[in-house]
């Protein structure tokens, strides 16, 4: 009798336990990130995997929808008063996680703090022409810039906004590990290097968010991250290497989803000296690289050829240019090389980062193989990103005439062509290795131009110059690969942000 009672009790416990566990599990989503985060102060860090966490803790002035168009968030509307002044009308009734009202003072504080030299915010470069932000009244914000800054809103809207009072009460160091925001989730716990736990903020101005609890785990190893998805410990994993996508799609309860990324891969010529100073040589090298083969063999078919540093979604991209301006054509390549005075293939130094982009080492080696196939003697130099980037920056100062190449990738959530051009191709940039005065003048005009139509036209013609002059080898647009548990209904975005508000349970 006692035995029977024990068995019944045990079965009841198991059932009840399963029920309770199931109920908790249903309102929780766990996301497996690959990168480490170093702060929860969203106004310091511009990392995309950080953005997934900040989008839960904080709000933005605007936020992009699935079609990547801006939708009002903290800010309802804005206008440009003159070339150097902007005014923003903010949403009323927004409250911080501590219950205080969120006003224009808070936004002004966040922006002015980013602009302080000693703070070291990575966002400063995004809004560097800003000279001052001030609250006109509780819900009107005025921003002045030192030069016309046509993309202010596109850049500003990426920055999470902090509540001034909570920040000042906590101090910068304490705030960074115990943050207060206005976002749909409140901070619970952060174990550095392991996980960040958040709890729903039912008083958010959008209403209650879709899950009671959100957890971001940091799982740096690709296979271990996949293991966590397969075992059901996490619901979504990011940065799945192409070769592991098949393992996910083979399981009925999981989905492997690839979306076109905001990142483009390309190879940077040292076009200032040596053989690559001649545009015919650069075009010839472009004709010798079989991009389709690279996509197929290195990226497992996941990628699309591009005709720029970045994918076509960027503002200023010229849609009338051929999608593959330099198809694989060795005959044409060698004709161009002969015209430039190179009867024989020469020595090339091919530099590539290791561990920075998906399959970067394999990609660099495949490019080396394709060049060697045509008789070039290629010296491969793969380096860890920090050292690699230092050498790239130092290349401007060097005097030798070697033919040097650098494999690079570029992607930024503002989707504006002026920024990558300004950072990499404009004369005066710290990394630029292409001395084209006309391009620089057109780009400068575009960066000052406040009329969006003229600005796009100027960027279109800058893009055309890039295609014609080929300061880079055009490669492909990457894909962002995700593994998703079937119980979560979610379509990944192109801007690498895993936004919990767009998910729901099936």
């Amino acid at each position, binding site marked *: 009798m006692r035995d029977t009672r024990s068995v019944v009790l045990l079965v009841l416990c198991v059932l009840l336990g399963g029920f309770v566990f199931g109920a908790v599990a249903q309102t929780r989503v766990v996301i497996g990130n690959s990168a480490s985060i170093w702060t929860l102060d969203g106004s310091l860090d511009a990392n995309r995997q950080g953005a997934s966490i900040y989008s839960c803790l904080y709000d933005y002035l605007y936020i992009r929808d699935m079609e990547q168009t801006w939708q009002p968030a903290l800010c309802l509307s804005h206008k440009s008063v003159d070339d150097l002044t902007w005014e923003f009308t903010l949403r009323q009734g927004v409250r911080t996680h501590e219950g205080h009202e969120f006003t224009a003072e808070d936004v002004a504080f966040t922006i002015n703090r980013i602009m302080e030299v*000693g703070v070291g915010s990575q966002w400063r470069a995004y809004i560097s022409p800003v000279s001052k932000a001030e609250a006109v009244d509780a819900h009107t914000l005025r921003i002045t810039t030192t030069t016309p800054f046509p993309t202010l809103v596109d850049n500003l809207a990426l920055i999470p906004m902090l509540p001034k009072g909570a920040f000042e009460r906590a101090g910068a160091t304490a705030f960074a590990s115990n943050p207060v925001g206005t976002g749909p989730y409140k901070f619970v716990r952060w174990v550095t290097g392991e996980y960040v736990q958040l709890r729903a903020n039912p008083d958010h101005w959008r209403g209650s968010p879709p899950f009671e609890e959100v957890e971001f785990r940091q799982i740096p190893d690709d296979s271990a991250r996949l293991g966590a998805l397969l075992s059901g410990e996490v619901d979504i994993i990011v940065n799945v290497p192409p070769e592991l996508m098949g393992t996910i799609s083979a399981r009925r309860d999981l989905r492997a989803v690839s979306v076109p990324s905001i990142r483009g891969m390309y190879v940077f010529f040292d076009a200032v000296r040596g053989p690559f100073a001649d545009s015919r040589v650069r075009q010839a090298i472009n004709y010798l690289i079989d991009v389709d083969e690279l996509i197929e063999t290195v990226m497992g078919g996941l990628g699309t050829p591009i005709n720029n540093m970045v994918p076509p979604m960027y503002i200023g991209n010229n849609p009338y240019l051929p999608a593959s301006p330099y198809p694989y054509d060795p005959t044409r390549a060698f004709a161009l090389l002969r015209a430039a005075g190179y009867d024989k293939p020469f020595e090339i130094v091919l530099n590539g980062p290791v561990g920075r982009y998906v399959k970067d080492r394999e990609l660099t080696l495949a490019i080396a193989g394709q060049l060697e196939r045509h008789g070039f003697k290629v010296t491969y130099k793969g380096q860890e990103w920090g050292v690699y980037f230092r050498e790239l920056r130092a290349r401007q100062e060097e005097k030798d005439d070697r033919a040097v190449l650098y494999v690079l990738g570029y992607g930024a959530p503002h989707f504006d062509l002026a920024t990558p051009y300004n950072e990499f191709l404009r004369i005066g940039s710290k990394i630029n290795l292409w001395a084209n005065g006309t391009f620089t003048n057109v780009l400068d005009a575009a960066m000052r131009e406040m009329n969006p139509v003229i600005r796009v036209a100027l960027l279109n013609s800058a893009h055309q110059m890039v295609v014609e002059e080929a300061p880079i080898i055009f490669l492909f647009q990457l894909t962002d690969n995700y593994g998703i548990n079937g119980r979560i209904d979610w379509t990944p975005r192109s801007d690498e942000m895993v936004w919990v508000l767009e998910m729901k349970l099936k």
Partner: protein
Amino acid sequence: MGRYITRRLGQMIFVWLGVALLVVVGLRMTGDPVALLLPHNMEPDVIAALRAEFGLDRPLYEQYARLVLNFVRLDLGRSIYYKQPVMKLVMERLPRSLLLAATALAVACLLGVPLGTLAGYRRGTAADVVISGSVVAAQSIPSFWLGIMLILVFAVRIPWLPTGGSRTAASLILPAITLSVIPLARMTRFLRAGVVDVLGQDYIRTARAKGNTERAVLFRHVLRNAVRPAVTDAAMTFGRLIGGAIIVETVFAWPGVGRLLMDAISNRDFPVVEGGTLVIATLFLVINLVVDLLYPLFDPRIAYD
């Protein structure tokens, strides 16, 4: 004893200062951390301000002296990357590293001592061949592969254990097993060699001749003498495991001090690399000293008077 300790402490300080010097000079040879941390289009005044904040604009000897003096005051500076005190970051991670290293070492000792003793005592038998062969095989397994296999089997196929993290006691099992393989193999080999060596000694023959049982000979005479080199090695291994479990910590997302240091190196986070390395070096030196001081317990012939 007192004189010995004083001399050893003096040596320790000397070694420690050397480690600190290597860390400071070696790190600065890899480039300017601030330039690498900030976006490359950042204005020079921002870079200069951050360099000044972290004292990187000062002469090298001054940076070295400041590091040493601050360490004595238990102030390891502020992380460039995390913008938090280094002491806080290291101390958050250190207990987890100690726990992982101690568990792995305990597994290694609990299995390695009996296995090594058995292999040595039954030298040349099937048991010896199996144990010695397995030890060589185990030492050849790369830990990232073993870790992934354990995850696939015990967390994915048979979902008994978590794939990673450090939240529950169960999370410790797979990383500790993976980390224990190399020390286990070393311990087994040391014990085996020690037992074989001791068994050939005259005093063992004497012990047997005195009519001791085999059991008494093994436990009182053989093991006690054979275990000595293994104890020293285990202590050194413990020191190494604290900061050197990077691969295991990465595969199992275990937030230990090894991964903190590894991330710090790729982020050029000088204060964390310096502070973390010095904390580990200090621990290593202290463990070394403690083991040496405890040595008379294992070997009565050694005395420090």
